[in-house]
Structure formats: C-alpha cells, structure tokens
C-alpha cells in the first residue's frame, strides 16, 4: 500500500451556505478561527475592527481570529454567501507559503461554489454515517479548504501575467477582452465566431487569430466554457429544469449537442453532474 502523508496545517471546523432571510444583521463577535466568506449574490457589508468591507458577488473576504467583526448593515434580501470556519496549526517544514488577499474577486467562481458544495455534501454524508470519521474524509475537509485558498490566492503572483505580456500585444489583449465581454453578456443567444466578428467589426480570421494568441484557446471554446459554466450553475440549483430546458437557457439550440459539449468539458453527463450536487445545507441566521 502506498502511504502518503497528508498532514495539513489548515484545520476546518464547519461550512455552510447562508441564505438571507431579508432582515437582521450579522452578529458582532470575536471568534478564535479564521472565516472565509464567499458571496454568491447580493452585497455583504461587514466590518472588522475599524475597517469596512462591502463584499460583492463573486468576491471573497477572510476574517481573522481574535479581531472583532460583524455586520455593517442589515442583510439584503438577495444576499447568499458560503462560509467556512478554519483554524491554522503551527506548521513546521514541508509546507509552502500561500499569499491570499483579504478581499478579492474570484477568477472561477463556479469552481469555488463546487468546492463548497463538495465540502457541504461530505459534511452531510459524514453526519449521516455516524461512524467514526475515516482519516481520508477528515483530510479531505482540510484539503478542500486549502484548495479554496489556492483558488483565491496565488503562489506565484503575477509572473505568468508578466510572461504573457511580452508576447501578446496590447491590441490583441484588448480584442480578447472585448470578445470575452461580448460572450459574457450574450452567450444565452445563438451567437458564434462569425456573428461576434460582425458585431465587433473585425474579420473572422483576424479575430480568431488574435483571440487565440491572447488566450491560448479558440472563441468557440471560450463560448462553450461560458455556456457550460452557466449550465453547471443551473444544474446545481434547486429549480428542477430538465436538461433540454437548461440547454436552451444556456444558448445551445440542440440538447444532444449540449450533452456532448458538457461531457467533453466536465467528463460527466448533465444528469450525473446534477446528482453530484443534490445536497445542500442552508442556514438563515
């Protein structure tokens, strides 16, 4: 048997999804653990000691142990956020430093949501199992939180960005950004490389080449990524839309094609994906 030492200085306590009841304010308190908050929708207004934070959707905030924190304003009705409490043990050698911004936007929010969902569903499963927790499970929690921190922070700040800027011109980068913005706002409609090029006033070939050079993948792949990421969100959601409805809602006109693309990107069929995330834990205070 292969033995792997997975000791981890990150020691999580518990996690959950907070759904705003539309009233009330976050308690003012001092706790002895870190808290990572990830806002899914709405804005969370918090203070820590004398600092104020307005955490927008798809942003994270980390609160530190021993400092007084609390809500700076009542909960907005559309506010949803994930939270996890964790402690940090003193680490010896064999660890790596990770720098995490206190308040930061998340590059891939859907992935972070999935990490939280995995955490929460493992937590539920463990609750139900009632047996002593296997070390594999226990370790899973700390590594899930570690992965969340990796997703937010970075070990090599900005070096890759600097590398890229040497070969990609400003013009290509700005074209790629415009294409991405266009995809983000219109992916639900039936758009493609040709219609994007026409809309932005470039030739299809030039646009495709510039985008590919800046991003390392094609416009169609970017469009598929965006659509599948929307589908992942809808599949996790509680609304029981069927797969075809979800395909249409994400801009795919053919549900079978949607299945194929979804499977290529995630490795799972939409149905399998849905059953992965069928459990949630919600708190409202």
């Amino acid at each position, binding site marked *: *048997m292969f033995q792997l030492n997975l000791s981890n200085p990150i020691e999580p306590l518990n996690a959950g999804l907070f759904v705003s009841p539309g009233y009330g304010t976050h308690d003012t308190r001092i706790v002895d653990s870190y808290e990572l908050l990830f806002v899914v929708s709405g804005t969370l207004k918090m203070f820590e000691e004398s600092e104020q934070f307005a955490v927008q959707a798809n942003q994270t905030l980390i609160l530190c142990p021993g400092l007084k924190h609390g809500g700076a304003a009542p909960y907005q009705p559309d506010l949803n956020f994930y939270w996890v409490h964790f402690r940090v*043990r003193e680490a010896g050698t064999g660890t790596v430093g990770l720098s995490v911004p206190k308040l930061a936007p998340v590059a891939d929010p859907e992935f972070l949501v999935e990490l939280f969902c995995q955490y929460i569903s493992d937590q539920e499963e463990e609750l139900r199992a009632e047996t002593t927790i296997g070390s594999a499970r226990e370790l899973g929690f700390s590594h899930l939180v570690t992965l969340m921190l990796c997703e937010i922070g970075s070990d090599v700040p900005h070096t890759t960005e600097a590398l890229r800027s040497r070969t990609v011109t400003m013009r290509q980068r700005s074209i790629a950004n415009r294409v991405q913005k266009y995809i983000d706002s219109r992916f639900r409609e039936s758009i493609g490389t040709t219609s994007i090029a026409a809309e932005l006033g470039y030739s299809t070939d030039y646009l495709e080449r510039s985008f590919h050079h800046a991003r390392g993948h094609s416009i169609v792949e970017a469009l598929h990524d965006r659509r599948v990421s929307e589908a992942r969100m809808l599949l996790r959601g509680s609304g029981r839309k069927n797969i075809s409805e979800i395909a249409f809602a994400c801009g795919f006109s053919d549900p079978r094609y949607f299945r194929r693309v979804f499977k290529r990107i995630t490795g799972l069929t939409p149905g399998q994906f849905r059953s992965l995330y069928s459990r949630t*834990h919600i708190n409202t205070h």
Partner: protein
Amino acid sequence: MNNDLSFQIANPVEPIAGSLEVSDSAVVKPLRLRECHVLLFVSRGNVCIGSAGSHIRVNAGKTLLIDPEPSRRLRIAADSDTEHYLLWFRRPDCGSEFDLRVSSRLLGIPALATARRPERLTYLLRRYLHQQERRGSSRLLRAGLLVLILREVAMSGTTEAVDPPEENWPNTIVSRVDAYIAAHYSEQIGTIDIAAELRYNPDYLERAYRHLADLSIRDAIHLRRVHEAAAQLLLHREYNVSEIATMCGYNDVNYFRRVFKKAMNSTPNRYRHGASADGPRARKRNTRVSA
C-alpha cells in the same frame, strides 16, 4: 493591496502531468514512468498494464497506482473503445520527511481499487486537466486537486458501498428532507410537517427516508440540531447552554442536554470547554462539529 494574508499549506505531492487517452481501436504503447508515480483510472473499457513477464488488467471504474521503478519497462494496452486517465506525480524530496508539529496522518492508497464515486473522481480529473491546459494556472491548485484525487482513491479502498445505490429519485427524497431540516431545524418541526411540505404521505416518507438514510427523520432532526448546537457552543461563547438550546429548536434545556449527551457523548458544557483545550481528543470532536 498590501493586507494580503499569508498561510502555510502542505504540499505533499508534486504534480508532473496528466492526460486523458481515448481510443476507438485497440492500441499498445509504452508507458513512460519518468521516475514518477503514475495513477491510472479507467473510465470506459479495459486496459492492461504489464511488462514481458506479467501484466495486470484494469477494468472500467478501477484505479491502479504504479510506483516509480526506473529499471522496468511497462506497456499499456487499451482495448477498443476505452477511455482512461493518467496522472504523473512525485513526492517532493523523499529524504526529509514532512514535519508538521502534529502527529502525521498517513493516507493509505491501495494499488488496485474500485472507485467508490467514479463521477466525483472523473470530475476532479477533468478539473485537473482543465487547470493544466490553462496558461498560468497555479501549481498549488493542481497539487490540491491531486490530493483530492488521491483521497478519492484512498476512500475506495477503506470503505465499500457506504453510499446508497445511485438512483436518482431516492437521493432526491433524502436530500429534500435534509434541506428542509437544514432550513427549519430551529422551528418546531416533525415528520408530519415535512411530509406536508414536500407533499408525501408521512408513513411513506418515513419508510423511504429510513430505508435510504438508515436513520429516522426524527433522529435526523435531532442530529442536525445537536450538530448545529455544537457549532454554536464553540462559536458563540457569549450564549449560555439554554439560549443555544432555544436557538436550535429545543424549548426544554434538560431535554436538549439529554439528546446532546446521547449524540455527542459529552454534555454541552463539557463539549464547549473540552473543545478549547488542545489534544487529540478535542481535535477529533472539532471535526465532528462539521455541520
């Protein structure tokens, strides 16, 4: 921003590369070990791994972990219509053992195993490949995914068939009941309210839930309340036990104490104070709070 926080995290494995191989017709190729460990997961079809003398057959849904053996030449043979994943990784610096100032936790990973949750494993592997493809993705992020992948494999060896069979509707019943309990545990709820809310006959719902979750709905409500209370006890030291009992849906604090003691094997007060002390026992309880 200069108020970045800095964390020390463990990096027990060093990811080298990953690939997904899809073959329509049968192929035989050399398998490069690159002085790495290699994890194979077959998601469809059959794959054979071997050298001149011996070989091992890996069917769909199984994983195989290969140790680095520089002297051996391995071949990988895939039947027609197969799909498999390969991950190459190393342990950083085998000489100096990992030193965390806690007892080390070893995870045993079986060489040949059946994935307990093949979907989860597939999804993690895809995320890994996705990260690998993207430019400038963090190495630590890939290392973290790799740990989760290895953990999935480890779980397949230690526990078998803990999950209820993967049918869609019954999971939905359990998860809908759990979601309702999670949202309403602080109120006075019982099986009848849940059945009315979810539009099931109470007897049927009770039977179905008990069958699938191996737990009565009443016990599930108690467990949820107790775990919530346990978390509150640690997080809100300014509240006393009876306030916490009320917050978690118990009007009678003595009743709460009894239920808590039965579930957690400790009284609420002892739990609160025991958890702040150090020591393996306390740590273990902390993780059980997880709710």
